[in-house]
């Protein structure tokens, strides 16, 4: 694809956009995964949220 004499500006702009959007997506996925892991670990240790304890009552 020939983008003319200013091709470098166009490719750098698209490349940087892809890089930053990719970073945002990766960060979003990893943060949620990390917090889920921490929550599961705490629950395995027998710690229950107050609201979760309330729900388990008959």
């Amino acid at each position: 694809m020939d983008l003319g004499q200013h091709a470098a500006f166009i490719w750098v702009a698209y490349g940087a956009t892809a890089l930053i959007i990719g970073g945002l997506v990766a960060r979003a996925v990893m943060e949620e995964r990390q917090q889920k892991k921490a929550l599961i670990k705490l629950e395995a240790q027998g710690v229950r949220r107050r609201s979760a304890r309330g729900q388990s009552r008959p």
Partner: protein
Amino acid sequence: MKLMGKFATLANPSFFMGLTDRVLPWLAVVTAALFAVGLYLSFAAPPDYQQGETVRIMFIHVPAAWLATMCYTLIAISSVGSLIWRHPLADVSAKAAAPIGAAFTFLALLTGSLWGKPMWGTYWVWDARLTSVLVLFFLYLGLIALWDAIEEPSRAGRAAAILALVGFVNVPIIKFSVDWWNTLHQPASVMRLGGSTIHPALLTPLLVMALAYTSLFLWLHIKAMRAEILRRRVDAMTMLRVSQAAELKAAE
């Protein structure tokens, strides 16, 4: 009253987690499809008669700039919800949106600069539009720093909400800067009275990319809100475990 009750149910963090768990995969598919179509159209579009091939930067620059201000508007609305109703989800929404808004503002500045060099002959000028967007970027950084500096979430939320509302004055300045002052930046050409001045061959890819960016923003924001809700649960449970351990030690 019934409406408020319904709203309270919808804005309940547990309900939010359940609902978004079902919505997020569909939103990811829609976002990917919009980007595939948008990118295809962006490179299939004809070059502009004045700007040539560099007009393709518009398809990624303009949606980033729109999202930069839209995200700040969302933070301001969430801040009102946080300050008046003290709703925890409003707080979570504002905090989760700030880093995403900062990234899109940075992208708008970077791609604008890369578009400016071949068109204007310079990467940067201190004109009203560019400077007010740079101020927006610093406002985002300020909000992120404030959230990080204050440990207690409700206190941090209140301080950040006040800063966000004060900073909101910058949003109309960004929008109207091209009308109020002489700037190198072009005036509004899509959202203006009298209709768009862009040819449909270039407007269609721009609008599809704007939809793709908006859909991506929604996905990112919901994901970040979910992570923040989980983080607060983890913090609360960690505190609980510490206090339980202290009680047990005292009983011994």
